C-alpha cells in the first residue's frame, strides 16, 4: 500500500511539473554565426525562467519556406519561426500568426514599439492595425569585390569597379578565365533564385514594374522587362557565358578566395562569414564592397531591394505559449549590437543605426546609402508564385532556346492570371 501511495505521489509530481513546463519549438534558417549566439540566449532565458524549455531547430535557407508551409498545412507549425518577409506575408493574411503580445515585451502600445525602430521597419508586418512580427534583420545586397583579381587583369579595383550593368558585363569579360569553353573563374554572378531581391530593381531602373500602381496589371512596361531579359540571356551559358543559375553559388565561393569568382552579391552579414570561414582573406584587405549597379540609361536610381526576416509566433500555439514566445523573441532581439558584431545582421532599431558601433562597422555606409535608394521586396498574397514565374522566365532565356519575347509573353500571361485569381 505504501509503495502504491509513493508511486501515486511521484506520478502526481511528474504530472504537475510537466504541466507547468512550457516547451517552445523554434525553427529558423541555418546561419553558422547566429547559432552560437541564439543558443546562448536560449540558455540565459531558460536560466531566468526555468519553466520554459526552448528547442531551436535549423533548416537550410532554401528549404525552410517549404518545411514551414507543410508543417502549417498539417497544423503542426512551430511556436516561433522566421523566413523572408515575402514568404511570411501570406501567413499574416491567412491568420496563421499571432499579433505581438505587448505585455510580454514590456510595452504599452504599438506606437511605443514603432518608436524603437526606424521608420517603416514594422510596416511589412502591420495588418489591420496589428503588428505580427519583430525584425531579426533588414538586409539589402551590395557587390563584394576581390581586389586581387582586378589587379591581375590590369584593372584598378578602386576606380574600375562596375558602376553600371553594362560595365559589369564588360569588366566581367575581362575577369573571366576560361579553358576552351569551360568557365574556370567568373567575374561576377547573380544571386539566383532570389529574383524579387536582385532582378526586380534592374527592371525598375528601366521604368518597369511587377504590378501597376492601380494593382490591376502585372508586368508593366514590356521594353524594360525585355531589356533585362536580353541582358540575362547574354549573361548566361548560351550567350557570353559569364554565369549561370546552375553554377555554384558565387557568394559561397567568394569567401574561399580560390580564383573561381571575383564579385558576388551579398548582404552585410557576408563580412562576418568571410571572417569566420577565411580569416586570412578577411585580414588581407583584398576585398571591398561597392554599391549595386544601375543601368546606363536608367530612368530610376533604384538599388537592390531589401528584405526582412521577422520572428513570428504561431497563432495556433496556446495563449500561454504565445506569451512566452514573444517574451523570448524580445529577449533575443534586445541585443542588436551582438547580432551586428557576431553575425553581421542589421536590426532596424534606432539605437543601433545611430550607434557608433554601426557607423564604424566596415562598409555599413555602402549598405545604408544603397538602402536609402531602395525599397522592400514586393509583399503580395501570392508573392512566392510571382517570384517563381520570374524565375521561370529568366532561367528559360538563360538556359534554353527561349527568346526574351517568348519568355515575356508567357510571364505576362501567367502573372496576370495569378493576379486575377481570388483566394
Amino acid at each position, binding site marked *: 500500500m505504501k509503495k502504491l501511495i509513493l508511486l501515486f505521489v511521484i506520478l502526481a509530481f511528474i504530472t504537475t511539473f510537466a504541466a507547468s513546463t512550457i516547451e517552445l519549438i523554434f525553427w529558423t534558417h541555418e546561419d553558422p554565426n547566429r547559432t552560437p549566439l541564439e543558443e546562448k540566449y536560449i540558455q540565459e532565458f531558460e536560466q531566468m525562467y526555468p519553466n520554459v524549455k526552448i528547442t531551436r531547430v535549423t533548416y537550410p535557407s532554401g528549404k525552410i519556406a517549404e518545411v514551414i508551409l507543410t508543417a502549417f498545412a498539417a497544423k503542426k507549425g512551430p511556436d516561433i519561426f522566421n523566413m523572408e518577409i515575402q514568404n511570411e506575408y501570406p501567413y499574416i493574411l491567412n491568420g*496563421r500568426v499571432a499579433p505581438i503580445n505587448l505585455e510580454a515585451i514590456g510595452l504599452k502600445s504599438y506606437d511605443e514599439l514603432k518608436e524603437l525602430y526606424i521608420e517603416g521597419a514594422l510596416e511589412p508586418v502591420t495588418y489591420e492595425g496589428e503588428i505580427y512580427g519583430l525584425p531579426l534583420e533588414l538586409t539589402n545586397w551590395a557587390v563584394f569585390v576581390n581586389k586581387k583579381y582586378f589587379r591581375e587583369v590590369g584593372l584598378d579595383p578602386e576606380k574600375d569597379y562596375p558602376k553600371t550593368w553594362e560595365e559589369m558585363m564588360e569588366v566581367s569579360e575581362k575577369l573571366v578565365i576560361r*579553358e576552351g569553353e569551360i568557365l574556370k573563374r567568373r567575374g561576377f554572378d547573380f544571386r*539566383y533564385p532570389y529574383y524579387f531581391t536582385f532582378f526586380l530593381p534592374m527592371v525598375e531602373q528601366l521604368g518597369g514594374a511587377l504590378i501597376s500602381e492601380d494593382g490591376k496589371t502585372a508586368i508593366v512596361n514590356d521594353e524594360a522587362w525585355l531589356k533585362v531579359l536580353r541582358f540575362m540571356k547574354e549573361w548566361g551559358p548560351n550567350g557570353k557565358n559569364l554565369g549561370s543559375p546552375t553554377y555554384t553559388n558565387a557568394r559561397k565561393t567568394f569567401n574561399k578566395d580560390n580564383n573561381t569568382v571575383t564579385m558576388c552579391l551579398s548582404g552585410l552579414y557576408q563580412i562576418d562569414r568571410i571572417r569566420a570561414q577565411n580569416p586570412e582573406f578577411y585580414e588581407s584587405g583584398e576585398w571591398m564592397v561597392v554599391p549595386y549597379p544601375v543601368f546606363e540609361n536608367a530612368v530610376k536610381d533604384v538599388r537592390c531591394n531589401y528584405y526582412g526576416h521577422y520572428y513570428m509566433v504561431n497563432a495556433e500555439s496556446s495563449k500561454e505559449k504565445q506569451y512566452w514566445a514573444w517574451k523570448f523573441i524580445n529577449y533575443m532581439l534586445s541585443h542588436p549590437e551582438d547580432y551586428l558584431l557576431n553575425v553581421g545582421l542589421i536590426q532596424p532599431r534606432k539605437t543601433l543605426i545611430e550607434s557608433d558601433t554601426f557607423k564604424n562597422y566596415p562598409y555599413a555606409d555602402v549598405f545604408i546609402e544603397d538602402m536609402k535608394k531602395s525599397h522592400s521586396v514586393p509583399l503580395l498574397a501570392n508573392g512566392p508564385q510571382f517570384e517563381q514565374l520570374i524565375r521561370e522566365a529568366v*532561367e528559360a532565356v538563360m538556359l534554353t532556346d527561349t527568346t526574351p519575347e517568348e519568355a515575356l509573353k508567357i510571364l505576362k500571361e501567367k502573372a496576370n492570371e495569378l493576379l486575377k485569381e481570388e483566394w
Partner: protein
Amino acid sequence: MKSLERKKAVWGFIFVLPAIVFFIIFNFYPMGYAFWISFHKKNLISLRPPKFVGFSNYIYLLQSSSFWNSVKATAIFALGTFVPIVIFSLIFAVLISTRKRFQKFLEMAYYSPAVLSSVVAATIWFLMFQPYGLANQFLNFLFNTNNIDYKWLSSEKMLVLATIIVYFWKYVGYYTIIFIAGIASIPKSVHEAAIIDGAGKWQDFLYITLPLLKPTTLLVSIMSMIQTLRTFSTQYFFVQSGAPIKPIEVITLNIYNTAIRDMRVGRASAMSIILLVIIMFFTYIQFKISRTEEISY
C-alpha cells in the same frame, strides 16, 4: 474439414489485418481525400474550409499549357528511360548469368545504386554535369575534343538526357536482378535439350531463353514504365539547383509545385488523380498481358 479450412481462413485474415489497416490509413485514405479535395478550391495555408468547385480543377488542367507540357515531359522521360532500361538490364542479366566467377559481386555492384537515396544520386550526378565535371571530360575524351562544354544543364535536350542517365544508372541494376531471377527460373533441362538438339549459345538464347523470359520482360517493361511515370527526385533536385524547369517538369513535379509553391491543393490533387488514372491504365494492361503470357514447365 470445413471447420479447419474456416479456422485457417480466419487466422489468415487476422495475420493480414495489420497490413490492410496500414494500407487503408496510409494509402486509401490519402487517395480518397485527394479525390474529394480535387473537386474543391483550397489554399494550403488558409484556415478557411475548402470551397466546392465541381470539375473546374480538371477543366482548368485540361486547358492548361503547363499541364500538357508536364504530360509531354513525362512521356519523353518515360519512353526515353524504360526502353534502354529493359534492353540493357536484359543484356546485363544475360552477361552476369553466363559468368562462372564473380556473379554475386557483379549482382551487388549493379544493384548498389538502387539502394542510394535519390537525392544523393542526383547530387553526385549534378556535380558530374557541371561544365568542369566528369560528363564533359568523358565526352571530350570520346569525341577527341578539347574543353568543349556540352551544356548538360543549359540545353533542353541535354538536360532531359541528363535526367534519363541518372535514372537509368540508378535503376538498371534493380531490373537486372529481376531478369537474373527470371533466367534462373528457366529449367536447365530445357537448355540441355536444346544443346543436345544441336543449338549453339546464340540460338539457345534466341529461341529458348528469350521466349521463356517473355513474362519477365513484360513485367520489367511495365514496372519500369509505371515507375518512370512517377519520377520526381532527380527533376526536383535539378530544378532546385538552378536547371530550367520547363523541359523536365514531369507531372509529379508539377503536382508538387502546384501544392507546395502555389498552395493550390485542389488543383494539385486533380493532377494526381489524372496521374493515378494513367498509372492504373498501364497496370490494367500489365494484368491483361501477364495473364495471357503465363508459362508453365
